[in-house]
């Protein structure tokens, strides 16, 4: 890891500003790091020229024009974002060779801020997965290994490429997306920070859809400050997205403060699960201590419908996905398999060859729960329970300002270790409730388990209170002193 690649985005920005190093030097170091880390399988496409071109533009501008917030900073972009002229496949075979003639709003915002692109990051197919094993391009290898073992571990998912790349220091920061934990669980598994903002903060325009009522983009980076910097650049009202929040983007970085005096931290009693390893509950207690030390008052709260969040999610998300993924039919883009005779055959053959097992499984479930005779029993019921879950949070935030829980019920597991789909779904048991309620939530590294693997703490904020989430995260970051980085084996 070169001196530059070990820096945070804030450090790179300030060093570039004050002329300690050029944007080109930054881009070259990260390009080299990316090229040297192919064993991680973190990228689906590498775009070193893009990173260099943006760097040169930044170097040109320095001293003359006003620099963008991310001038000279190259980033990794999750393959779920449409990037103009660069393969955007959502980790799926069905989007083979798809080069969008358009740029997603979020990545366009990042480019406007001066950021370059190091490449497209590997992910679970259509963001459906928690281990990156559903990617058509094969799983991402976590840079982390259990102490004294070389068993390949998952970086988590679906934003596994983003998490692995940040943790390995081959990108200073990356975009992720989170439908039911896809930013927070991989962040926890790889010892980095990741925030899912309030639903509607980041435009979904140009982000390949999984479940429209849940999908949110967010940043993944080494520090809370870096997340604040990136989120400020990514977020913003977009008239092209009907569900976009028409609000100004707060100055989250400037607002950072780890002083939580007068704040109340809600500790949901329903999140105490016997099956969860003691180490994780212990870290949770430690997290409560840290926030208390930062001036916050811990109080027990109740989120009675929490236990129904996962089943609710696994009705609503597949239902929306089954419809969102109907457009992959071999007619206008991507893969086409010519069927035996008819158009229907072409659809069937194309989708059979183009979608992986997990995506097919979810399309099947989603199709079933929407189908005649089952709609009310499953989908309408799930929407009602979702309303109750949102109500739980509304009541909770009348008593507290922020909620603290573990991010995931376990540390990173080995690739191929979890084969039962249900067991895999349970990874997101702590992350999904905030997704269903559209609330801002983030994972911040808390420490290492007995195997030397990172564990994350999970902060949930009230609607539009990303600042509260970031500040509590900062309080934990300050006290956890988490500096562990994976041993380079790749």
């Amino acid at each position, binding site marked *: 890891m070169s001196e530059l690649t070990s820096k945070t985005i804030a450090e790179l920005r300030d060093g570039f500003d004050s002329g300690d190093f050029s944007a080109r030097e930054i881009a070259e170091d990260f390009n080299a790091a990316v090229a040297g880390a192919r064993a991680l399988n973190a990228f689906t496409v590498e775009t070193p020229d893009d990173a260099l071109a943006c760097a040169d533009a930044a170097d040109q501008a320095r001293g003359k024009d006003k620099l963008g917030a991310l001038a000279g900073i190259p980033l990794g972009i999750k393959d779920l974002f449409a990037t103009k002229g660069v393969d955007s496949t959502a980790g799926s075979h069905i989007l083979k060779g798809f080069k969008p003639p358009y740029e997603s709003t979020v990545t366009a915002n990042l480019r406007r801020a001066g950021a370059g692109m190091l490449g497209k990051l590997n992910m679970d197919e259509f963001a459906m997965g928690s281990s990156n094993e559903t990617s058509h391009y094969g799983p991402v290898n976590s840079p982390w290994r259990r102490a004294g073992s070389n068993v390949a571990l998952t970086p988590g998912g679906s934003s596994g490429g983003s998490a692995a790349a940040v943790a390995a220091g081959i990108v200073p920061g990356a975009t992720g997306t989170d439908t039911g934990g896809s930013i927070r669980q991989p962040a926890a598994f790889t010892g980095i920070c990741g925030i899912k903002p309030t639903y509607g903060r980041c435009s979904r325009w140009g982000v390949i859809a999984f479940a429209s009522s849940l999908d949110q983009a967010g940043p993944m980076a080494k520090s809370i400050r870096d997340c604040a910097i990136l989120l400020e650049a990514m977020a913003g009202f977009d008239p092209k997205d009907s569900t976009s929040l028409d609000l100004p983007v707060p100055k989250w970085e400037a607002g950072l403060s780890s002083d939580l005096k007068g704040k109340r931290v809600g500790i949901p009693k329903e999140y105490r699960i016997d099956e969860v390893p003691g180490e994780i509950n212990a870290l949770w207690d430690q997290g409560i201590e840290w926030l208390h030390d930062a001036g916050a008052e811990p109080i027990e709260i109740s989120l009675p419908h929490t236990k129904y969040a996962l089943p609710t999610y696994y009705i609503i998300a597949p239902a929306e996905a089954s419809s969102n993924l109907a457009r992959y039919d071999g007619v206008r883009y991507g893969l086409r398999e010519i069927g035996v005779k008819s158009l229907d055959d072409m659809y069937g053959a194309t989708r059979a060859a183009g979608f992986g097992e997990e995506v097919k499984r979810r399309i*099947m479930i989603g199709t079933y729960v929407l189908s005649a005779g089952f709609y009310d029993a499953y989908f309408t019921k799930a929407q009602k329970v979702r309303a109750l879950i949102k109500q739980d949070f509304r009541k909770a935030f009348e008593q507290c300002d922020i909620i603290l829980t573990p991010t995931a019920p376990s540390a990173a597991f080995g690739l191929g270790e979890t084969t039962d789909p249900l067991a895999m779904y349970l990874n997101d048991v702590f992350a999904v409730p905030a997704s269903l309620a559209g609330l801002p939530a983030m994972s911040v590294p808390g420490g290492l388990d007995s195997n030397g693997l990172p564990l994350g703490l999970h902060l949930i904020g009230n609607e539009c209170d990303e600042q509260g989430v970031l500040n509590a995260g900062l309080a934990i970051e300050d006290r956890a002193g988490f500096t562990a980085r994976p041993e380079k084996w790749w």
Partner: protein
Amino acid sequence: MPPFRPFVIALVAMSVNTDQVRHIAKLARIAMSDEELDRLVPELNNILGWVEQLAEVDTDGIEPLTAVIDLKQRLRDDVVTDGDIQSDILANAPGAQHGFFAVPKVIE
């Protein structure tokens, strides 16, 4: 409130058989071999059985939540701002001829 046991899977109340799964696959336009169908039946039943624990939640008088943020739908002005990008529209098409998308003959 019963103790939180997410790892306990509820018993399958409504369960699907191979013919239903075949019908769903047809609706979803995913070609599937009998082997695939047979493999999916228990998987789907396992998941469906698990989600059916929602049945125990009392949702009387609860409005289904469709939009997670309470905003009003914005409306666009009636202005032509897009189009005239035929080449972009067809650029990624597996089959395009004379400005059209081409698909296997459809018999109505």
